[in-house]
């Protein structure tokens, strides 16, 4: 209930500011943005562009999580490798997303591969660092147990290592998703001719703030749906062993 009231208060405040400023082009009220949202939805542009952006987010997310989890596991388990790779990670974590994106477009070309690569390079260091923390905290007694019973490497990974890593991977996934979709918009803004980022670029050059906000809200909604319909149920499933009772 406080959440609903708080959102209602935000909309009210926004409406009041819009009326007081009285500049409908640069400071549209919630009703105007809502109308644009309905318009864009009816024209099909909203769904197409949101869908394209979502596909890029999913592709970059899968690749970045795959590389980051594998790298994080290796670095967390082998301090020697970590000593060598860590300086690179420190540099990459602090590299501005914009620089990576521009360099990818210059070196790879203005294409889809460059766009996804830019997002992945921006995202991998963060996933790696978070998963590495988890890999450092792996229980040595369970390692001993797995060795005594000669569990195969794949069985160890599935039944011993990954369940211990689940909270760290889930954390990296959540932090990753919100970061990725922000970077995807920048990447689209700079060098793609489709997607939410491109629409924002287009509307920015025409000063259509209502359109920019409409696309932003549409995408926030999509990300919230993913959070509640995909990520939360997955986490509940992965942590069911923590429940008491039968």
């Amino acid at each position: 209930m406080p959440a609903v009231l708080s959102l209602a208060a935000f909309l009210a405040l926004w409406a009041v500011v819009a009326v007081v400023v009285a500049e409908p082009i640069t400071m549209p009220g919630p009703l105007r943005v809502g109308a644009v949202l309905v318009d864009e939805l009816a024209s099909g542009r909203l769904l197409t562009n949101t869908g394209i952006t979502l596909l890029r987010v999913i592709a970059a997310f899968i690749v970045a999580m795959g590389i980051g989890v594998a790298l994080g596991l290796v670095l967390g388990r082998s301090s020697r490798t970590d000593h060598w790779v860590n300086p690179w990670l420190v540099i990459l974590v602090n590299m501005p997303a914009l620089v990576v994106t521009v360099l990818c477009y210059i070196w790879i070309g203005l294409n889809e591969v460059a766009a996804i690569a830019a997002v992945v390079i921006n995202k991998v260091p963060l996933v790696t660092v978070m998963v590495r923390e988890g890999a450092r905290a792996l229980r040595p007694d369970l390692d001993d147990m797995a060795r005594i019973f000669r569990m195969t490497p794949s069985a160890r990974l599935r039944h011993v290592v990954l369940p211990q890593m689940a909270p760290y991977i889930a954390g990296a996934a959540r932090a990753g998703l919100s970061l990725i979709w922000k970077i995807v918009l920048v990447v689209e803004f700079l060098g793609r001719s489709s997607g939410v980022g491109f629409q924002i670029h287009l509307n920015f050059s025409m000063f259509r703030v209502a359109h920019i906000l409409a696309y932003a809200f549409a995408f926030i909604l999509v990300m919230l749906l993913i959070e509640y319909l995909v990520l939360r149920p997955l986490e509940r499933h992965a942590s069911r062993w923590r429940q008491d009772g039968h």
Partner: protein
Amino acid sequence: MDIDIRGKSFAGRPVLGPIRLTLVQGQRVAILGPSGIGKTTFLRIVAGLDGDFDGTVSDTGRTTMVFQEPTLLPWRTALENITLPTGVSPDAAQALLAEVGLAGKDRLYPRQLSLGQQRRLALARAFAPDPTVLLMDEPFASLDAQTAGRMLDLTAALLDRAGASLIFVTHDPTEAAHLKAQPLTLRGSPATLG
């Protein structure tokens, strides 16, 4: 099983001296000695968990171990805690669960079991792959006398049936006697079997 340890050091400090021990099928020995003497170090070498020593352990057969703590997978059920590490069939695992008094508990997770039940599950897991040598590292140390007694009876029964050899690390000579294990004492620095 042939154990021939010439020495084991931690950071240059010798912990174990020369230790020779040959175990024939079904033979049971207990390794006694005060805390910190190197009993667990010795057992980890025998188990193959510590390869950084001078000497050899050969003819190990199928070796399994019961640890000081139950060391179960908290995110897998009681049944899976037997089938996944050992590769035995669910039916064989069910039979073992019944044997250690955990019939009907197969779908519970470790945290839904009492500590005594968790230890019995760990015992069932150790016997699942039909071991030729069973290693035990003070598995009854944190149990009350009554529970420890029941666990000892259960272990003795399972050992009799499996015909496995036993290396049993403990600081309690009565536990060794209960399992009919020949008592050997680690003493000195670096420690040897006196």
